[in-house]
């Protein structure tokens, strides 16, 4: 009898205390992309919503609204929408250049705070405005899938180092490391390009790396890469596909700081304009690539030091190697730190052409 009463009590507690808000999949507007631009003094937010047509094609619809913070902008948009806008299925977040130059961390708060937003949402800075990118029609699977696919594909197989909300926030909150994001640019009405890597100082974009230097950048910040690079050796052009690369930092001296970065590349020749790739040629290509990578990487690091940004995380590395590390001292010393890059290339394969 007592058990029954308890059961009834529990049952009524369960059933009467109210349920979680339902979000039935076809009764909500699923935001898949969000873009933030600067307009006048306010932020112009755009939210991308796929419209699934009965013939299985996907159309893109964009809500835009003005406001000051992300959640408020989305709330403003719901004034125009017949169904609630839900953000659990975000794929990409784009930031217009102007916004990115003024800092994006306050907008990212909405991404971090909401547990339904994934940590692997891609973020990107737009050379231009995000709303412009949202206006196009790319691919046949919807704009958001196109944009996230663009970044994902270039991360997995191209020269783009891995970036997403998780990585960005990690780099941001990690002392002695600065974040970076892909830089997108709309070049044609139905195509978006990766235009390079946007470099941040804290939360503000201050510089970018062009696509031609992205291979070297990825060697410095990403463990595994499958990028390609064209090099010239012996007046013959060859395209090298990097199978695997690894980098290793070493702290050699502390005052002044001296670092040694060793990059190991296992590569293969995927194209060569000369005739046969003999062992001699392979040696030459290896030597040339080593020289090229070393000099380009050194140049990149020099540039970072000039701008006083640290996307490869030397400060963080130094901290892990030093007891009682002093960051204020480090920021002063960083531009003068000496960084040596040594490269070891081994070409494993030259293809089947004899």
């Amino acid at each position, binding site marked *: 009898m007592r058990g029954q009463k308890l059961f009834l009590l529990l049952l009524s507690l*369960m*059933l009467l205390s109210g*349920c*979680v808000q*339902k*979000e*039935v*999949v*076809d009764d*909500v507007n*699923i935001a*898949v992309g969000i873009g933030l631009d600067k307009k006048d003094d306010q932020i112009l937010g755009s939210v991308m919503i*796929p419209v*699934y047509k*009965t013939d*299985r094609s*996907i159309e893109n619809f964009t809500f835009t609204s003005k406001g000051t913070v992300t959640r408020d902008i989305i709330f403003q948009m719901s004034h125009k929408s017949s169904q609630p806008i*839900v953000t*659990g*299925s975000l*794929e990409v977040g784009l930031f217009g250049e102007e916004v990115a130059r003024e800092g994006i961390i306050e907008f990212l708060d909405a991404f971090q705070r909401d547990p*339904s937003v*994934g940590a692997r949402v891609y973020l990107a800075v737009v050379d231009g405005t995000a709303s412009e990118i949202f206006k196009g029609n790319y691919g046949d*699977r*919807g704009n*958001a*899938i196109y944009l996230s696919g663009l970044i994902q594909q270039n991360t997995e197989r191209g020269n783009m180092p891995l970036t997403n909300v998780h990585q960005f926030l990690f780099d941001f909150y990690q002392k002695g490391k600065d974040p970076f994001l892909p830089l997108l640019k709309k070049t044609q009405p139905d195509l978006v390009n990766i235009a390079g890597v946007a470099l941040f100082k804290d939360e503000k974009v201050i510089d970018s790396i062009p696509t031609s230097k992205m291979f070297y950048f990825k060697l410095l910040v990403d463990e595994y890469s499958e990028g390609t690079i064209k090099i010239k050796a012996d007046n013959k052009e060859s395209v090298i596909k990097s199978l695997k690369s690894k980098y290793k930092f070493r702290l050699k001296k502390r005052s002044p700081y001296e670092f040694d970065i060793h990059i190991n590349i296992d590569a293969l020749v995927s194209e060569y304009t000369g005739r046969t790739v003999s062992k001699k040629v392979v040696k030459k290509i290896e030597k040339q690539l080593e020289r090229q990578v070393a000099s380009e990487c050194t140049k990149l690091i020099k540039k970072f030091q000039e701008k006083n940004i640290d996307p490869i995380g030397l400060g963080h590395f130094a901290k892990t190697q030093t007891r009682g590390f002093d960051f204020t001292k480090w920021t002063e010393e960083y531009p003068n730190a000496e960084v040596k890059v040594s490269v070891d290339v081994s070409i494993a394969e030259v293809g089947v052409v004899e």
Partner: protein
Amino acid sequence: MQNERSSSPEKNQQHTQNKNEEKKNSEDWEKTFLKSKDFTKTNYINQKTGKPFTFVFMSTLVDEKILSNSVLPALLEEELYQLSDIKKLLPIPDVQLSTEKSEIEKKLFNGYVMLFLDNDKSLFAFIAAQKEVSRSVSAPEIEFSVVGPKEAFVESLRQNINMVRKRMPIKELVSEEFTLGSLSKTKISILHVEGITNDEIIQTVRQRIKNIEFDEIVDSSYIVQLISDNESSPFPQLLDTERPDRVAAILAEGKIAILVDGSPHALIGPTTLIEFFSSFEDYFLNWVLSSFFRLIRVFGVAFSILITPIYVAALTYHYELIPKDLLGTLINSRRVVPFPPILEALFLEITIELLREAGARLPTKVGQTIGIVGGIVLGTASVEAGLTSNVLLIFIALAALAAFTTPVYKMSNTIRLLRFPFLLMAELWGLLGITIAFCFLMTHLIRLTSLGHPFLEPLYPPRVQDLKDAFIRGSFKDLNRRPSYLRTKDPIRFSGEKSHKKKDIDE
């Protein structure tokens, strides 16, 4: 009560007495008997000694051929002076002398013929002349197997025990008999192998069966419900089988079997949850194949229980879990449906349940097939009418199909039922609700016992050795030990070392 006309030795014919006279002279024990038409009482006179004697029997229960061929000629033509002489005269193995009047009813209704000499009614003999009416042994229908024996139990206890004994012709196979039911007087037999089966199991069963208070026991499934550890559980705690070969196999493992007269199903215990997913055909196939089929079955059950709740949960609460490519398909199929996912799912689930229930009531097995096919046609129509989404229809049809893979009928009924609480919890709290429902299910299963032995063994408590014949069926060479949870008196079935030896080369 002697009839004068039959006193002369020459006219030794059968004389039926006048009913009225009979009633007047009848003794106490006969009063109720006389109301039945098939109660027969006949008088005879022995030719040599002139002794009159009387037969009393139930004509519907007695094989009259035995009477006229073996009993009557001897009794009429040989020298019969006193009742104890019949032991010499009758060519029948089961003849008992008795003075107990209380035994009369029991014996008469078990097909015995009562015989007494008219001058001494206190002593009487019972002659066995039972009429055996039972259908012939046929192929198993529920636990059908392509290979292997094609014998199934029938409704006769004697026939059933015969089929088991043929497969295990040893004296250690003990059959204990009980009579249960104040009205049905059903004979129940417990089979076990002495020297293997743990005494505690036998004692438990014996005790529970003795404690049964019931009037009419019609089938073995009554016994299951009466002696189950937890009678409110939807899970059957004794395995029922119609295969004598399976009974012989589990007896060898150290389990016990309960056979009930009038029921073509034997009960096996103690059993585990895993055993309900193993078909006996698994042992007829190579262990690699049967292990694969068992895994398929386990997957089928999980799929059958969980797929609709997951559909409801994901579509109602967790749109972010759905892959982007699938989202279009789901939204398109859902767009025209006016109901929330739960109503849509309940609508289809109940349709399938109705069809299954109707199919089971249809006279032939074809009815079932037609029912399912009809269900899919009905489903397609309801998709076209915009009542349900076609994605869900596929899921429901697959789930129904997957539930049929369970080899034990009683378990597939349980699975039918289990889906609904999961569905309701999915509607209430999404995936969290499914998890909670699963916790309840697991708690219930962990607490459940079969004849005092854990139902979830070998998963909980974990018994690595017994896992050899759980999700996978190990090869016969590896199954050289009896299941450890049964605590058998002789845990080793055969020498594992010897069985692993290869004897290719003669030395």
